[in-house]
């Protein structure tokens, strides 16, 4: 097999035949997807459809069993020389991850640090940013997510919505070129969902490339450039939100939308 041509960074994310197994359970069964820079892609589908797993494969929190993923033209997790893939060492892997922001369903803020410390920790530790500079940037980011006055609060003193907004600020502090959101509002009380979605909407308007796993169909319709419906480890249907969510072509998409709306 001849060496494939180097990937031009026309796509921020490109996935090709991605397979992922947990033991004998095949969670991803051949995913092909591409996300352009500044695009907002909404991943929807029933639980267990593999959408969160796919998201975690993009920053190599899960190792894929077959296929390849590129982020900004760089292969995820490996260096390709000819037709051989060399697994990246820990430091190379960490550097790639530092360029991809991730927001988790359960926030995962560091509970022993204040909001401000949560935001400055990675820039200082990973990027060697000077403290004063990191603090200044962190205050701007907390301001941007509407939590300037909560800088000195510990996560346990914040509501779920506030914690998730700090988590977004923490991810943005690394100046990522891509943001991954793994069901960012699923663990929130209904009245707190809006404040997190507002921050994400603003981020999308500012031109951030985003992949969002979500069950918020209204939000997906309004903010998404494209909606991808996954089921059983494969992409069933994709297209503009208005099409996929209003006039789905596939029976499975129709069934899913009928159940949740």
């Amino acid at each position: 097999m001849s060496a494939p041509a180097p990937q031009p960074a026309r796509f921020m994310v490109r996935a090709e035949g991605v397979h992922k197994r947990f033991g004998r359970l095949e969670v991803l069964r051949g995913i092909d997807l591409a996300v352009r820079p500044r695009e907002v892609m909404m991943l929807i589908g029933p639980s267990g459809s593999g959408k969160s797993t796919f998201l975690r494969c993009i920053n190599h929190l899960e190792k894929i069993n077959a296929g390849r993923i590129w982020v900004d033209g760089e292969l995820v997790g490996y260096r390709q020389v000819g037709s051989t893939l060399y697994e990246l060492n820990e430091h190379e892997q960490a550097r790639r991850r530092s360029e991809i922001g991730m927001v988790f369903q359960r926030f995962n803020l560091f509970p022993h640090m204040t909001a401000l410390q949560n935001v400055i920790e990675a820039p200082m530790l990973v990027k060697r940013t000077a403290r004063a500079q990191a603090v200044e940037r962190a205050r701007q980011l907390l301001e941007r997510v509407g939590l300037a006055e909560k800088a000195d609060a510990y996560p346990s003193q914040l509501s779920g919505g506030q914690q998730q907004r700090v988590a977004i600020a923490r991810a943005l502090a690394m100046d990522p070129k891509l943001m991954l959101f793994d069901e960012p509002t699923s663990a929130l009380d209904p009245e707190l969902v809006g404040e997190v979605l507002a921050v994400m909407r603003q981020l999308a308007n500012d031109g951030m490339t985003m992949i969002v796993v979500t069950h918020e169909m209204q939000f997906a319709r309004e903010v998404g450039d494209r909606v991808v419906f996954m089921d059983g480890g494969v992409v069933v249907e994709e297209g503009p939100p208005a099409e996929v969510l209003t006039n789905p072509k596939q029976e499975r998409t129709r069934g899913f939308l009928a159940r949740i709306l």
Partner: protein
Amino acid sequence: MGVEVERGATFTVVPVRRYGQAVLAVVVALLVAWLAAAGASSHFVNPRVVSQYLNNPLILGGLANTIFVSIAAMIIGIVLGVIFAVMKMSSNVVLAAVSGFYIWFFRGTPVLVQLIFWFNGVPAVFHELALGVPFTHVVFFSMPMVAFMTPLAASLLGLGLNEGAYMAEIVRGGILAVDEGQVEAAQALGMVSSQTMRRIVLPQAMRVIIPPIGNEFISMLKTSSLASVVTYGELLRRASDIYSSNLFVVELLVVASIWYLALTTVASIGQYYVEKRFARGTSRAERETPWSNLVRNIVRLGR
């Protein structure tokens, strides 16, 4: 007693009468008084001898040795504990098995046996302590085992290695108690595993590890008295050295006990403050001191 429950309405509250408790209290108080009287009237404890030996230089030296050997053995134990905990959690089978064997062996045998083993057993079996290249005749340094295995060395080895086995399980429990999402969040931000361990996992594990370390230290202050059997001059050894010549056996045991109580009391107080320091960020722990509770309750009463 009148208590204002609702605006304008005053009720009299009568607590439940607990007659059984009152009877029990009287019985226990009588028993304690009887014991105290028996102790005070006995001819076996001479309070003047007790107070005379309380600040005896030999006793104070023994006290210092007890503190020293306890702290040193704890440090050895904590260092070994962290190492063996990480080894046991390693994906490397050999490391995990060696750690498992160490923990099984040292927790499964009495520390008194281990102390005697180091002090008497090891010098009897190995006559020389040598540092060289294994399986060759190259030796950089050697000394007679008897010269190396002083009472202090045997005490530190016995107490420290034993403590390490217990600490390994405590540290492992602490690391396991940290949510997996914390590691993922750190990784997603670009931290490598050593940074994640040092900045994210261990500080959170500390909150779980610190209270048992305090208990282990308090326990070590007392367990260190076993070092007396390998003739290490700690508190109990010094007390027994003195009473074997002057025969004030009970008085000197009382002296030693008073010092042990003082040590454990001070350590308990220290533990309270250390635990408070490491409770940072957990619910409202840092703001709910007894004092703030009191203030809040007063404010609430005023309404």
